[in-house]
């Protein structure tokens, strides 16, 4: 028997909740029309440790949390935190990784046994009796024919019903088939690993993306002909990944199904602002992003609550206890102005020097919220370094407060190399770039020498 009451009544068959953990407490959030988040019930004290990043898995509509010290659960039917207890056998307590695979609760990251993995009975996440021999029985890696993983486990990736990928720091393994029913472990790579428990994601086409030492990799869906992991960033921005330190950085990969972006978030553990990347799969480009320090994100997820476009978003958990989302109507980061820019070039119009005599910029049109602002900075120098990472010989800035096609700006900027930077640092302002036309005149020999 069920009652419902409310001013605006809908009759959804299901609802997508957002489970959040902060300060060791568990929260339950709802999308529109509620747009609210509140503590889960039965939490007079924090059920989890307040410091570590928590791993979560859902089995039979109950969420299981592990933090490396304890395991607790949240049946979504009650909304109350419930102490976790085994109904058969005993489970590993000091685990930091949790996942769901084939109806089993899978645990790993055991500080006492870091190369081992543990799977509950299929359909019964509290049954850890490894002595049973039926195909659905609980199984541990060291007690099964599949055996242990070759090095400490860093990530659990439930890829398909038949395959689970297990990531380590410098290797990648594939569990083929149920280990309780003759499954085996195959090494996919002994050089590439997964740098963090959330440093992976799978797109709707089944392509797995993960961050390994030295780059961003992809693995094609299993139904295609097998191909080894493919490096996606070796030809454009590999330095970003070479500089990662996953012991001091929290790395999250989130797939944006609407914009077809792969979001790679890198948040320093010390709470300072990190630099993130967005991988545009449609054009194959990498785009650096930066948020305020409080925006983190220390946790991130794709929240697809219902059919409404306003209820689908990539959510970012901050260092300040707030959860934020990208908003197409927002032109700043929760009240803080964005520092947005793009550097076009460098250009070398002539073998020797040239003069940039005229610049015509076509900016996009302003529609929607905010005002328009774009500062165009033209720079010249003797070599490509001077106009990129170095100091230009000369520069001039033009402030564009109107959108669309600008008047032609005339200047006499002399040099061997040139760049054009378009930027905005004004709060509540926006810009986009269509095209530009730079007109150069020859200016003789390059007399600047080092």
């Amino acid at each position, binding site marked *: 028997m069920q009652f419902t*009451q*409310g001013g605006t009544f809908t009759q959804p068959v*299901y609802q997508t909740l957002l489970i959040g953990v902060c300060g060791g407490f568990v929260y339950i959030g709802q999308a529109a029309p509620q747009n609210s988040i509140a503590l889960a019930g039965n939490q007079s004290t924090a059920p989890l440790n307040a410091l570590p990043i928590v791993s979560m898995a859902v089995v039979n509509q109950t969420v299981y949390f592990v933090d490396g010290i304890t395991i607790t659960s949240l049946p979504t039917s009650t909304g109350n935190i419930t102490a976790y207890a085994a109904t058969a056998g005993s489970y590993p307590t000091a685990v930091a990784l949790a996942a769901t695979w084939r109806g089993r609760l899978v645990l790993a990251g055991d500080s006492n046994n870091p190369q081992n993995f543990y799977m509950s009975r299929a359909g019964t996440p509290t049954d850890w009796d490894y002595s049973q021999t039926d195909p659905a029985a609980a199984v541990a890696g060291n007690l099964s024919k599949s055996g242990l993983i070759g090095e400490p486990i860093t990530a659990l990736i439930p890829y398909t019903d038949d395959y689970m990928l297990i990531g380590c720091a410098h290797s990648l393994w594939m569990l083929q088939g149920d280990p309780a029913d003759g499954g085996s472990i195959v090494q996919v790579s002994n050089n590439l690993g997964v740098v963090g428990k959330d440093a992976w994601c799978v797109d709707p086409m089944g392509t797995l993306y993960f961050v390994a030492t030295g780059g961003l990799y992809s693995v094609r869906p299993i139904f295609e002909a097998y191909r080894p992991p493919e490096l996606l960033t070796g030809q454009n921005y590999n330095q970003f990944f070479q500089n990662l330190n996953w012991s001091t950085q929290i790395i999250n990969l989130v797939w944006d199904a609407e914009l077809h972006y792969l979001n790679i978030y890198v948040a320093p553990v010390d709470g300072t602002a990190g630099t993130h990347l967005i991988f*545009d799969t449609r054009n194959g480009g990498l785009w650096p992003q930066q948020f305020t320090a409080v925006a983190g994100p220390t946790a991130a997820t794709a929240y697809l609550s219902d059919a409404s476009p306003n209820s689908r978003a990539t959510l970012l958990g901050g260092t300040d206890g707030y959860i934020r989302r990208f*908003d197409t109507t927002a*032109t700043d980061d929760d009240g803080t102005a964005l520092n947005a820019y793009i550097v076009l070039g460098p250009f070398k119009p002539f073998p020797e020097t040239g003069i940039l005599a005229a610049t015509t910029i076509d900016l996009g049109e302003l529609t929607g919220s905010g005002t328009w602002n774009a500062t165009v900075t033209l720079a010249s120098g003797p070599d490509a370094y001077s106009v990129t990472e170095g100091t230009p010989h000369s520069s001039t800035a033009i402030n564009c407060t109107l959108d669309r096609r600008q008047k032609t700006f005339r200047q006499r900027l002399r040099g061997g190399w040139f760049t054009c930077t378009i930027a905005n640092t004004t709060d509540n302002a926006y810009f986009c770039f269509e095209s530009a036309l730079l*007109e150069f005149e020859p200016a003789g020999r390059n007399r600047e020498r080092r």
Partner: protein
Amino acid sequence: MKQPVPVQSPIKGVNRVVNREGQPPDTCWDALNVLPFDRFGRRRVAQRSGLTKQYATNLGATRVQGLLPVNKIIYPATLNSTGLTFYNEAFTSLATFGQSWSNVPSTATVSSNKLTVPAGFAPPVSAAGMTGYTPNLPSTATVWKFTVSVAFTRGSPDPSIGTLFTLGINYAGTGNTLNCDAYAHVNYGTVDGGVTFNWFTTTKNGSNTILASDGAVGTIVMTVTKSGSVFTVTATMGGVNMGAASYTTVTPRTTPPVPFMNINTSNGGSVAVS
């Protein structure tokens, strides 16, 4: 001689692998907080969308440790919010039932997720702990009745046109010696509206007996719809249309309504509710 250099949006992003003088076409050596598609989905480099808070609530002055979306079926949980409240009574035990409902008859039994109220019970059973609410019952309760009422608050905007509310109840009647009425009751604002229909007679709408024998189970489905300013309550039992009533005068409620049941077996028989 002028040398025009057209520049297009570098949609292929940052490239720092090549030599400085060899920047590939459609790439740039540096960018920050821009994306290859603008906020309206056109492929041209533009400032990215900003960030806003998903929820106004702060979870604590420390970092968020994890986020996970979970799909769930709504029925069993109570999700409190300013917009919707769901309440489910699963009848798992008499003690559990008694915690949420007052005036629970001591002679009632709970088994198989079903509450059975035997003969001789008259007082209403209502949800405890909420503000007082007096149900508006027919004055002559000479027959045993099972009544379930749901009240909802007028909102801003009003509930949308279409199915506003559907209540499904599984019940079984026993002791088929009297005419017994089932009263599906809806409170909207301060005006009570509902449909009364009979469980056991053979003449209702020309249909045969809905419950032909003791223990037979039927399902009441009550629907409220709105067309213009008219609210219409209809009820079906066992799939048979049992009647309808329309209401045009509605006064918004100022206090939260209280779900309640009225089970009256003072004249014999018993009622099982699930």
